[in-house]
Structures are given as structure tokens and as C-alpha cells.
């Protein structure tokens, strides 16, 4: 589809060193984001979405990329030294975080923080930078932008602070915007405004966006493609409409099935599916999803499923595709589901029609 993707994350592994030794929070993640494309990342809490997003900019605190590549415009960022990396941050790739209440420095004015972002990468005078800051604040829908320049973060609401964060992110017209749950901390009406704003500005600035979200409704409305994370891996990815309509991986299917009203998929929380994400230290052998998978059979407990390429630019990490060859998820081919393997999963019959 896209001749050369803007961002190619290729077999990314991220390791954190902890008191009890290293843990691998991201284990072989691959996905791409094309120029001007919006890619949504979904998955349960702890599945490695934020770690992956931070790894792209190498902002991991206490963690490191232990294997794999993060190619931006064809160039691998993983081996870049800090100085070269700084030229990428905020300039080529900008990031917006989940918690706008704590993401701005409380001791500096909004103007200072936007001007700082500009002047780190552009040789402009302070005056010109301030004018540009006013313009940016206007674009992000801040009322009375010129006066707001002198405001301090504590004088702004959560939504306004997130607008400032967006202004900072767009200051140098980045080609990729990473937004890690940018609206989770905001209330519903503000959330809709901010998402719309992001969507509009993304078009205006012709920026690609990697949007981490919990909201399947947002995915459906904004994303060109969706990447589903589970246990530090990508389990499924593909064009949004197809994935939502016809999920290929049992985990995606379970996620979608757990949405209470599929017609209005506007749930703020990621739908809950039975069981819990395993801890990084005791990932199950074989398929990481097998203890919770309704489709699991014996092979799933010891065979690690590879990513299967499916028609239509989709991939899925499930052993079912070995024989199924990319068909929709159906009953397991080998020994049928044992109660032991899927203790909490809903009965198979309810999964028909996925």
C-alpha cells in the first residue's frame, strides 16, 4: 500500500533492569505506520503499549532496546547516540502523554514551554517564536491565546493543558505524532473535543499518528489500521474496518465480543475479558494467551505461534492459521478446547458470528 512506511518497528524487544534482574516488557513487536496514516494501538493494561511508544523515541526510563529496529524514514533509530536522538525528538517525531496534569513544568509559563520546543530545533528569534506560539495556541483552540502565553499550567484545566501539550508537539511540524492515551485522564466531552482536534490538526499538518487508546469507538472512527497488543507482543494487525468486523485472533475476538453494545462501541474502558494479563516474569509457555483463550488446545501450551501473514495486509499470531491458512477464526483444528486450558473463557457457542 505504502511504498516505504514512515515508521517501521521491526522485532522490537525492550528490557528493563529491575532489582530482581532483567524483565522483557516488549518481546518482538513489529508494525508500521505509513506517512499521514493513523495507526491505533490497543490492548489490555500492561501489554506493552506505552513501553513500545516510548521506545520509538528512546525515552525509556531504566529500560533499553535489547533487540530489533525502529526505522524512521528508513533509518534505524535504535543505535543512534543521544545527540542524534535529540534531533529526532520533537522535530521528526513528537509525543503527547496520558496525564496532562503532570506533563507540563509547573514553574514555567505556557509560552516558555512552547517557545522552548520551537527553539530547540529552529533557529528563530524569541519574538518570532512567541508569535508562532500564539498561532499554535490558537490552532489548538485555546481561548485568548496571546494572554494564555503568560499562564502557568496550574491556571489551566486538564483539557487546556492537553491542548498546550498538542501545541508543543506540533511546534516543529513533526512527521509522526505519538499520542499515548491522550484523553484517558479527561472527561468524556473534553475527550471528544481533543480527539477531533488531533484528527483535524493531523490532516492540516499532514502528520502520521500512532494513537494508543483503550477506546474501540475511537479506533473505529479515527484509525486507518489497528495493532492489537497482548503480553508484550503484537497479536493481530490490519486495516481497522476488517479487523473490527472480522477479527482473526482469538484475543481480538474476545475483546470485541466483550464490548457490551457492539453497535455503539463507545466504551471508555477497554472491554474486560475473563482472566488477567500474566506477569512479565511468568509468561506462559507456548502462546502467551493460551490460559485465557477459548480456542486453545494442547499445542498452544508449548508451541510459540509465529506471526502469520494473512490476505488483505493483515497479520495474526495464532496457531489456528497454520492449517486454516488465514480464514476467520473457527473451531480449533486439533484436540478440542479443554476446560483446564480455558478456565474462564466463555463457551464456544457464544463466539459464533464473530
Amino acid at each position, binding site marked *: 500500500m505504502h511504498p516505504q512506511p514512515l515508521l517501521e518497528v521491526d522485532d522490537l524487544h525492550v528490557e528493563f533492569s529491575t532489582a530482581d534482574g532483567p524483565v522483557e516488557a516488549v518481546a518482538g513487536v513489529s508494525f508500521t505506520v505509513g506517512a499521514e496514516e493513523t495507526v491505533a494501538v490497543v490492548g489490555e493494561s500492561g501489554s506493552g503499549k506505552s513501553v513500545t511508544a516510548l521506545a520509538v523515541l528512546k525515552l525509556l*526510563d531504566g529500560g533499553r532496546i535489547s533487540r530489533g529496529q525502529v526505522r524512521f524514514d528508513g533509518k534505524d533509530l535504535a543505535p543512534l547516540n543521544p545527540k542524534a536522538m*535529540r534531533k529526532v*525528538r520533537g522535530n521528526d517525531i513528537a509525543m503527547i502523554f496520558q*496525564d496532562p496534569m*503532570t506533563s507540563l513544568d509547573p*514553574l514555567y509559563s505556557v509560552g516558555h514551554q512552547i517557545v522552548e520546543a520551537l527553539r530547540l530545533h529552529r533557529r528563530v528569534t524569541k519574538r518570532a517564536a512567541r508569535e508562532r506560539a500564539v498561532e499554535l495556541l490558537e490552532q489548538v483552540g485555546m481561548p485568548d491565546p496571546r494572554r494564555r502565553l503568560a499562564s502557568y499550567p496550574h491556571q489551566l484545566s486538564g483539557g487546556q493543558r492537553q491542548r498546550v*501539550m498538542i501545541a508543543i508537539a506540533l511546534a516543529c511540524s513533526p512527521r509522526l505524532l505519538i499520542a499515548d492515551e491522550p484523553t484517558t485522564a479527561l472527561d468524556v466531552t473534553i475527550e471528544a473535543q481533543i480527539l477531533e482536534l488531533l484528527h483535524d490538526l493531523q490532516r492540516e499538518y499532514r502528520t502520521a499518528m500512532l494513537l494508543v487508546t483503550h477506546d474501540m469507538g475511537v479506533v473505529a472512527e479515527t484509525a486507518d489500521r489497528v495493532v492489537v497488543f497482548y503480553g508484550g507482543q503484537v497479536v493481530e494487525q490490519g486495516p481497522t474496518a476488517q479487523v473490527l468486523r472480522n477479527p482473526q485472533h482469538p484475543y481480538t475476538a474476545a475483546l470485541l465480543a466483550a464490548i457490551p453494545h457492539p453497535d455503539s462501541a463507545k466504551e471508555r474502558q477497554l472491554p474486560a475479558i475473563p482472566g488477567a494479563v500474566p506477569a512479565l516474569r511468568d509468561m506462559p509457555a507456548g502462546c502467551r494467551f493460551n490460559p485465557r483463550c477459548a480456542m486453545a488446545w494442547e499445542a498452544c501450551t508449548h508451541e510459540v505461534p509465529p506471526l502469520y501473514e494473512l490476505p488483505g495486509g493483515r497479520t495474526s499470531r495464532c496457531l489456528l492459521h497454520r492449517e486454516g491458512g488465514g480464514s476467520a477464526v473457527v473451531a480449533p483444528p486439533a484436540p478440542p478446547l479443554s476446560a483446564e486450558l480455558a478456565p474462564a473463557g466463555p463457551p464456544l457457542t457464544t463466539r459464533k458470528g464473530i
Partner: protein
Amino acid sequence: MIEYVVRRVLYGLLVIALVTVFVFLTLRLIPGDVVRLQLADAPGVTQEQLDARAAALGLDQPLITQLFKFLGDAFTGDFGISFQSQQPVTSIIAERLPITLQLGLMALVISIALGIPLGLLAAYKQNSWLDQSLRVVSVAGLSIPNFWLGLLLVTYLAIWFSWSPPLVYRSPGEDLVSNLTQMALPALALGVSGMAAIARMLRSSLLEVMRSNFVRTVRAKGAPERTVLFTHAVRNSLVPVFSLIGVQVGGILGGTVILESIFAIPGMGSMIFQAVQMRDYPVVLGAVVVFGAVFVTVNLVVDLLYGVIDPRIRYA
């Protein structure tokens, strides 16, 4: 803002008055009275002579009358006449206060000038041997009494280097080198606990700030580590440390009582020490009021400066 300052000043005056009353009553509870201390050694003193002396000092009045007279006069800046030297307490204090302010300021500067770099270094080299040894030094600095540290310093400098500071006071105008040499050790002894407190608090504060979300935002903008650290992290980490300064001033003022006596510095501290020994009530009380005023003023200034470094502070 002005309302805030006025309120703080009134509140400060109340605190000083209460402390004065407390010290006034405590002084009278210590055994031994000034008349006997002054005249006891003179041979053949009669009871009449003792009574006359007491009356001359105003000590024959009821306690409550004496207290209110002192408070009333003190409010107009008159602390009475020293029982000992017969000079007005106000002029004695006027002579001695600058000396103690110099000593206190030196102690404060030492604690800040050493505490901040040590705290930053400890945070920067977290868990290194440097951090570990700084931790030990900090704990020691916080727990060793300053007068004991002063004694250790003079003793060991004398033993190891046969050096001792000058014991005759020279004002900075007369002989700056001699003045600073005499002040250096007591200032160091007074500043060490403040240094330790600042270093420890700054270390933990900076480590916390470095993990905060806004530091990550600054990094995400592509800022060099220098900007992350000095423009954003250090400035934020200093906010809680700043409040230590007000507290520290109290400790320094208290510490001058013994340290000035050890190092023969003719300031407020050694004056209080002698005055307490001689039951020179007006001098002790005058000093208490002045120390109280210094403490209250410094804390007010610190709180006002807070608003300059932290825009979130509102005075109401």
C-alpha cells in the same frame, strides 16, 4: 498580598511576645538571684543593702508588674538597663547584633554553598560510593551537636596543626582576615547540620523530579540533558529545599550562644550566655526579642520569595 504581610507581622509579634513571657518566667525559676550574685562576695553586706540594690533594679515590684513594664517598654524598643554593665540593653545589642548576623549569614552561606552541590552530586551519582559516603556524612552532620563539632574542630586543629583561631575579636573593617579566620570555624560548625539537611532533601527531591512526567516531556521535545537538568529538574527540586532555610535560621541563632562563647566572639550569643549566668534579666529578654524578630522576619521573607520561585503559591 499586603494584607498577608500585615497578618504575618502581627502573628509574628504575638509569637515573640509569648516567647518573651515564657523566657521571663523561666528566668525567675532558675535558682540564684542577681542581687546575691552581684553583692555576695562583698564582705559585710547587710540585708538593707541587698534590698536597696533589688529596689534599684526594680526587682522589688510584683512579678506581673515587672513583666508588663518590660513588654510595654520593649514595644517601644527600650529593653531597660543591663544589671551588669549599667548600659542600655538596646545599645549593647546594637553593638553585638551585626557580629552575630555576620556569623549567622556565613553559616547559612556555608550550608547552602555546600549543601546544594552535595545534594545534586548525590542524586546524580545515585548509589555510588560518593552517594553512600555523603549519606553517612549527612546523618553525622544532622546528629552531631554544633557546639561539639566546634570543640572538635578547635581541638584537632590545635593538636594536628598547632593552629588555633584568633581569640581577640577584630571587626571586618579593622582586620578582615583576622575577622574571617575567627569566624570560620564557628560558622562551619553552625552550618554543617543545615548543609546535611539541604543535601539530603535536595537529593531525594531531585530524584523524584527526574522521574516526573514533565521531565519526560522536556526530553521528548529534544532538549539536551543540560536543559533537562538545570532549567527544569534542579529548579523544581529546589522548591521544597527552600523552606529549610527558615527552619535553619532558628538552629543557627540558638547555636551562637555556645559557639560564640567558645570562640570568644562578642556577639549576641556570648552575651546571652554571660547574661544568663549573671541573671542579667533585661539583657537576656532583649536578646530573646531580637532573635525572635530576626527569626520571624527571615521566615516571612522566605515565604515571600517562595512566590517568586513557585508561581503556584498564592498569598491569602
